């Protein structure tokens, strides 16, 4: 420590400033999106069967003559040089024209637009549950661990963290759906359309699956963060100054301990949306996950590309949001000065 202290300059007159910093991050995310878009562009071109596959059924293709094949390739833009195709693709992405889902008549934008709110509902609810339970347990676990207890909670969390999602989903369907019939097994709404009770009932099992498989991670992270903060000097000193334990935990431990958890959760939202593929598929929940899986199963490449792009976009947005909100919570990144 001292070695750094003496050799590093510390005549700090404030950090470079949020604007430059955020500018850097945004540039980074633009790069990320660019890579995602490029991947998206390349993948269908690398697949077996080639771009012809985008056209129609094998049997229909089987009857085509060589000239007809070439004509199709031109029609779908595959005849152009790759860079021309790439720019055309970039343009379509920027204008949010993601193409038409293969022969189901809807545009990709439309299909995603319909699915997105459901995913946001499902993932949002799960995030709230996961966060509340995970953090509560993590805080308790951290406090108990600092007293030398709580190994049981830790092992419990590890076990929960280790359950394969699809496995749990099936078990929940069998027991809560079929055996006890306490919750519907599939879908997002009941027979009466969109009602609050119907929505809530249909959220029970998928949210339970995402929550149970998600809390372990949040728990472990919160617990570790709690332990770090509990043993940190500011907290030790506050204790020495006679701040009562309850107040100590509330005022001096929780906020700094939850700072890194905040970032984690923001990132988690994006990843949960992707993780919802399994859950949405099993529970037939009409969100982005099921759409993605359906697209993959049907080899609906434009749709696949679209959902992949949107999922990436979500993760990036959440990253950005985490970057933007972090300074609101941590004065050290807000007001400058050495860190």
């Amino acid at each position, binding site marked *: 420590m001292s*070695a750094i202290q003496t*050799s590093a300059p510390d005549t700090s007159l404030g950090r470079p400033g949020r604007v*430059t910093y955020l500018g850097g991050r945004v540039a980074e995310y633009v790069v990320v999106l660019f890579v995602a878009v490029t991947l998206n562009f390349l993948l269908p071109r690398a697949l077996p069967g080639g771009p012809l596959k985008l056209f129609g059924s094998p049997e229909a293709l089987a009857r085509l003559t060589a000239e007809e094949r070439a004509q199709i390739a031109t029609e779908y833009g595959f005849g152009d040089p790759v860079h021309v195709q790439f720019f055309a693709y970039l343009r379509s992405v920027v204008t949010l024209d993601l193409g038409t889902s293969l022969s189901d008549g809807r545009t990709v934008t439309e299909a995603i637009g319909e699915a997105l709110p459901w995913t946001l509902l499902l993932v949002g609810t799960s995030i709230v549950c996961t966060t509340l339970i995970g953090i509560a347990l993590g805080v308790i676990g951290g406090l108990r661990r600092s007293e030398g207890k709580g190994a049981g909670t830790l092992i419990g969390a590890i076990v929960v963290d280790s359950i394969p999602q699809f496995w749990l989903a099936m078990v929940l369907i069998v027991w809560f759906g079929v055996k006890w019939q306490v919750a519907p097994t599939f879908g997002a709404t009941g027979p009466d359309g969109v009602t609050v009770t119907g929505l809530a009932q249909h959220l029970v099992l998928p949210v339970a699956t995402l929550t149970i498989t998600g809390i372990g991670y949040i728990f472990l992270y919160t617990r570790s963060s709690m332990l770090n903060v509990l043993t940190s000097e*500011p907290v030790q*000193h506050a204790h020495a100054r006679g701040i*009562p334990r309850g107040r100590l935990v509330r005022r001096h431990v929780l906020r700094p301990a939850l700072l890194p958890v905040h970032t984690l959760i923001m990132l988690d939202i994006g990843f949960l949306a992707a993780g919802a593929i399994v859950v949405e598929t099993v529970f037939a929940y009409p969100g982005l996950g099921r759409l993605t899986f359906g697209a993959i199963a049907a080899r609906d490449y434009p749709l696949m590309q679209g959902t992949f792009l949107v999922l990436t976009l979500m993760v990036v947005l959440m990253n950005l949001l985490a970057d933007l909100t972090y300074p609101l919570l941590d004065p050290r990144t807000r007001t400058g000065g050495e860190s």
Partner: protein
Amino acid sequence: MTLSVQDITVRYGGKVAVDHVDLEVADGEVVAVVGESGCGKTSLARALAGLLPGSAEVSGRGVLRSDRHPDLDLGAVEDWRGIRGRRIGIVPQGAMSGLSPIHRVEAQLREMLTVHDGTAEPGDLLERVGLTARELHSYSHQLSGGQRQRVAIALALAGDPDLLIADEPTTGLDAVMQGKVLGLIASLGISTLIVSHDMAGLLPYADRFAVMYAGRLAEVVPVTSLHQGRHHPYTAGLLAATPSTDRTVTWASISGSAPPLDDLPEGCRFAPRCPVAADECRTTVPDLRVVGDGAVACHRVEVATDVGYPAVPRAAGTCGDPVLTMSGIQHTYRSRSRTTTALNGVDLTVGRGEIIGLVGESGSGKSTLARIALGLIRPSQGAVTLGKDEVTGSRGRRLRAVQRRVGFIHQDPYDSLHPGMKVAALIAEPLVIAKVPRGEHDGKIRSALAAAGLPESLLGRYPGQLSGGQRQRVSIARALVNDPELLVADEASSMLDVSTRGGIATTLRSVATERGLAVVFVTHDMGEAIQSCDRIVVLRHGRVVEAGACGTISSSPEHEYTAQLLAASHH
């Protein structure tokens, strides 16, 4: 009498850290508990505040009296709520990094006032510690070290305590700031217990000293009688081991190191290191007896008036050809968008057999300069030559070859030795790196070991089994083993107990003289530099403000800043 404790004993799993200590603090008195690391002073202070970990057992009696509160039997306290902060104010160790990072100063003060029913206003508290209301709205990261320390003191004052316990309150502060903070504490007028390893630094501020050694009280003495009468040899040693800025006062060191808690000697625990110890000392435990104004636990206190601790030798006065030449060194650090000039046009020459002291406070650029000399940092401008070879122009293999001719002693004896290597391997490391034939290793290691003043019995140990002084000697041996031309000691003694600093300086002097080494000695302690170097270069904000022979600088500093530094280490 604000505080009076008897028979305090602290055990950690059977190891006795504090052994039957009696202590009193009178109303408004400032009592300093001093001693080397591991002597039990921090355990004592924490025991008084109920801050020891659950694994510690505490026994003894103690009473806290005041005219505003009923007497408090400290021995019977089970619930420390309402005591810490309200009756006993604590300034914890390392307060620099101990303030809440997420609350403004005002909020922290208000919290303490609310929790402890304080009546003052946050602004008043800040004023009392020499800060202004401007700091109320600051976060801790926006304050300087000294300001933070003051805030920590203000926090301790919020509950208007009867007793203030300050644990090493000057750690991490620059010399000038140290005096100011101590002065502030002493001027508060509260009964105060300061725990510190720096006895000399406390002389102007403490009313009474309680000197601890290996868990026991060696001596309790009012500051007024410290320079007269008879004392414990250890007290005398601590004082003699503090380097004076007066070159006419000799600088001594206590040999050896404090015993580990699980291997305490019989009889007087200081006996193995005591120059005047007799047989009796090795068998019988001395009681604390009243001697003059104070009390001393020593069988030999009568004969111990003039304890002969080994003195740090002075230079022979001859200075050979230049070994290291640094000219026009300029260095700037760049981070994302700001540049900081660490060094600006520094020249330096070190000759054979010469010890140069690089003195400056943190941020002065002295460590950067040392690292440039070592080839670890490439300066933005300027040239460094070692003998005939240019350091600054070399890279890769050639640079490493030059580096092998320089020995380096790192500031941190605890981290600079690989914890997984034995002493023998540590010392041999430069030989292995330089691909010196195996056959020559043994002889070189032995000779380096002897030069560094280490017994060969340590060769099979891991650094974790050594004391700080021993580790730093391992570093010296390692720096010497490949017969370097230049030795760079970066604050080599700053993390050591004061008693062993002189020993390190002695060793450096002897290798400089015997081996004709050029030595760059980096330090923030003016006294240490004056005592152990031939010439001194004072750095401030990356510039040389003054350079000259030790004697001259000591007696007649030209630059105001040098004078300030001298004043700060007045002892």
